[in-house]
């Protein structure tokens, strides 16, 4: 992924409407109309969101029989999966483990000195 693509991916998943659309597409391919129907926004607004998702490489669009279809492209999402563990969570969990390890190591050092 290049820089712009990465920024686009993060920007894309930061929006609740777009996550909603992605969640729907995770169930399978859908038309623009089908995506727009359950959403409380206009179809042009939906199209705008789809454009953002497409630019991020998260969806693929095609036209068939005058209907516009959208399909999920999972790969960029897989690539941000690790980042989905929040930065704070990543370090807090690491440091909790380090706390425990340090206690063990301290106890071990103590034992080593014991006769």
């Amino acid at each position, binding site marked *: 992924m290049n820089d712009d693509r990465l920024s686009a991916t993060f920007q894309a998943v930061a929006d609740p409407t777009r996550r909603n659309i992605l969640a729907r597409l995770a169930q399978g391919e859908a038309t623009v109309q089908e995506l727009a129907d359950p959403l409380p926004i206009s179809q042009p607004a939906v199209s705008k969101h789809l454009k953002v998702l497409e630019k991020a490489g998260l969806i693929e669009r095609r036209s068939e029989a005058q209907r516009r279809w959208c399909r999920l492209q999972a790969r960029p999402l897989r690539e941000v999966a690790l980042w989905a563990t929040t930065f704070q969570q990543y*370090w807090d969990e690491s440091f909790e483990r380090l706390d425990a390890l340090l206690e063990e190591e301290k106890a071990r050092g103590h034992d080593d000195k014991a006769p």
Partner: protein
Amino acid sequence: MKASQSISKPAAITTPNDTEIRIERTFDAPRDLVFRAYTDAKLLPQWMGPRKYKMKIEQMDIRPGGRWRFLHIDTDGTEYGFHGEFREIVRPERIVQTWNFEGMPGESIQTALFQENHGRTTVTSIVKFERKEHRDGMLASGMESGLNEGYDRLDELLRTMH
């Protein structure tokens, strides 16, 4: 004083400027030991990263100019690679190293400072990115609480895609 009294507190994560992240945390252990936990290839995999990822060190040549590489391995076998180079090693005070998250843009430079006070050690890590977008990309993975819910949703979404 007792270990049972210690309540783990969150790391203080701040953004001192446009391109840096500062992470500070105090540990109830002497500096030599904390420094060892950061630099010993046997100890590091025992704490670095969330429990759900297995950590595997591929290379860890602790000296200026020495390379390092490790993997976080997800439960489904997905591997996330990280690598870089050690720039400075001052035992037991300071580690400067470059960081790359493989497949992602933007190398960062991390400076970890170890300070001891009354048997406790404070580790301050400054992570400096080349560009604000890279820094923000890293932070977008949850620094703003508003995004957390979204990422829970993303987790769910990813589960459905296996």
